């Protein structure tokens, strides 16, 4: 690989373009749309900083399963649901502000671990098609979530306050107000630089999380995960308990997604009980891929770049669409299309590359065999 890039400068440029085609495409889209939308720079920076604080932690939760070779963890939705259940309970107990958030995180851990265990077990039964299975798992658990929140909260799980209960006496309302803890994490230690509010504490937590992920990659378990991600068979021969390692990677991802969802929702300030989690997996995965990640490789840098580019597009697309065509819905649909399109492209690139690698391996084997014959 290295030899080739030294061979010709033009080849290296071409390779750089090919490898970073998705981020470059989004940079171009943003560069075109921003002037059309007419937003001021200050407004955009403010929005981006807010959205970085809101989303980065959630997206970080996707990194570990990618290292373990399980692809994009659509099952992060499970963690998001665990976080939501924890927030519902905590807001019923009326614990406010930072203590409320911390308690919600603590409450979410056992739920996340349980769901992660289930998801990991299911994915171990479906090796080779983890993504589609985790995707369906998120729907399935979505049904169970509805069962719990809509029917069990009230009669089985005690909910005291009628402000979050449906008028019929059981089940949770469509929206739960988190006003008591709204942005309490973001506002603590927040500083203003040139009119841009920077949620220092949230960024500090994110920074710690990044360090944690880097550190984790260096531990024995992290190394095992990388080995499993590269080749299950080789890892198994080396004495690694593959199933257990994969299970742990999913559990960690689910727990982190639970925390991420709590951070996300405390920024939003209210919880749409039945719809907050449905799209979250898709948007996080799209953002990560926009940042230049692929199904088998993702770094912290991808997360940051992805959030900035994806959300820039997200903010400006409706306005730009409205300016161009006079219909704001077009921009709205465009950003949905862009999100799905980028995931589709990433998946296709991943599969073709996998196939090409397999073909190459086959050819090398053939070559080796023919040499043996000689």
């Amino acid at each position, binding site marked *: 690989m290295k030899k080739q890039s030294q061979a010709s400068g033009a080849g290296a440029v071409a390779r750089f373009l090919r490898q970073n085609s998705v981020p470059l495409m989004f940079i171009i889209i943003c560069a075109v749309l921003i002037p059309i939308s007419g937003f001021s720079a200050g407004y955009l920076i403010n929005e981006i900083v807010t959205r970085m604080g809101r989303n980065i932690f959630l997206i970080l939760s996707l990194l570990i399963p990618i290292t373990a070779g399980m692809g994009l963890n659509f099952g992060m939705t499970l963690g998001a649901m665990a976080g939501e259940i924890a927030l519902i309970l905590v807001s019923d107990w009326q614990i406010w502000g930072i203590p409320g958030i911390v308690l919600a995180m603590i409450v979410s851990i056992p739920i996340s671990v349980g769901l992660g265990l289930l998801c990991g077990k299911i994915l171990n039964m479906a090796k080779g098609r983890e993504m589609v299975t985790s995707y369906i798992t998120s729907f399935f658990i979505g049904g169970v979530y509805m069962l719990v929140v809509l029917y069990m909260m009230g009669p089985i799980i005690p909910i005291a306050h009628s402000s979050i209960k449906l008028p019929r006496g059981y089940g949770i309302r469509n929206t739960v107000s988190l006003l008591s803890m709204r942005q309490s994490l973001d506002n603590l230690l927040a500083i203003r630089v040139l009119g841009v509010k920077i949620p220092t504490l949230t960024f500090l937590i994110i920074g710690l999380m990044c360090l944690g992920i880097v550190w984790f990659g260096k531990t024995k378990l992290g190394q095992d995960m990388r080995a499993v991600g590269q080749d299950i068979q080789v890892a198994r021969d080396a004495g690694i308990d593959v199933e257990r390692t994969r299970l742990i990677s999913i559990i960690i991802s689910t727990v982190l997604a639970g925390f991420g969802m709590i951070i996300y929702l405390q920024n939003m300030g209210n919880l749409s009980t039945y719809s907050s989690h449905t799209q979250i997996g898709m948007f996080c995965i799209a953002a990560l891929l926009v940042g230049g990640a692929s199904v088998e490789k993702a770094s912290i840098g991808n997360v940051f770049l992805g959030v900035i580019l994806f959300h820039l597009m997200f903010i400006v697309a409706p306005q730009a669409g409205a300016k161009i065509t006079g219909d704001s819905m077009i921009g709205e649909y465009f950003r949905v299309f862009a999100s799905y*399109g980028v995931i589709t492209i990433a998946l296709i690139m991943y599969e*073709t590359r996998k196939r090409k690698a397999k073909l190459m391996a086959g050819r090398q084997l053939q070559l080796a065999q023919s040499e043996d014959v000689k």
Partner: protein
Amino acid sequence: MSQTEKTLKPVSGFSAFVQNFGLPRLIIAGFLLLLFIAAPFVGSNFFTQLTNTINRFSWNAILVLSMVPMVHSGCGLNFGLPLGIVSGLLGATISMELGFTGGLSFLMAILIATPFALIFGYGYGHLLNRIKGGEMMIATYVGFSAVSFMCIAWLLLPYRSPNMVWGLSGKGLRTTITVEGYYDKILANFLKIEIGSFSIPVGTLLFFALLAFLMWAFLHTKAGTAMTAVGSNPTFARASGINVDKVRLQSVIMSTWLGAVGILVYQQGFGFIQLYMAPFYMALPAISAILIGGASVNKASITNVIIGTFLFQGIVTMTPTVMNNIIRMDMSEVIRVIVSQGMILYALTRKQGGSK
């Protein structure tokens, strides 16, 4: 099917039957039976319920049938069904735009949808040939991308018919368009049998039977056998001189076209064309229906389609009324989600339906 029966015959008895039929299927069938038995006791008319179930069966059966070719050729479950649906929607709206009415509009809708389905299916099939092994996930996202792209198209395409566009601005298609005056119940009312509260949409069922028969006949031709061979063992198929990629392409085109026809039949029964985000999750009910009917990721028959659609639609129609009356809660949505997604999950995690 016949092969597994042969091998399982010596192990007779209930456990063998369960193994052959699959426990989840048995539970679902038992649940539906229970609902039918309970229906008269909770005061809902048995015949109305049965009519509803048969009606919904007739709307959905072809969409479920569209899974069969792709499963046969080893492309997995057609999560990309929305692509076929989009072609059907294009056919429907263009036929109405051109001013066809009555039965002719239905025929024209199918005719106009066909080239779209062929073109989309061709591209989609080529794509799936390049990514063998990862079909299902990519199919899902191809479907999503197609639907969200068409959302933009529905707004921008130059439709003019006042029956379809937004009244105020005079452009951009509405989210739901009624097919009244066009092909509303055009098949359902053909040879319709009505006895009191019990009615059968014979025309729709006949149309499904025709397509199902054609599918069955096709699978018994040389090309059809080749398709099954490709699905069950691609290496063997290639060794015996079958062009694997071509056969897979054929199957994807067939599935896409059946999806297009399926949505048109659905519309004539339902009475409305649903645009924009509506086709988004339409693949999942069809997939779980065929799985409930006994299909697996790489095996499906016409019988699976019929049994599965009936069971799935039975549960969808029966649970709201019957369950509501028994426990005074509307749990139908939750049950529907858990049953259908659980069924897909079950199929995906089965070893025998394993990845190649």
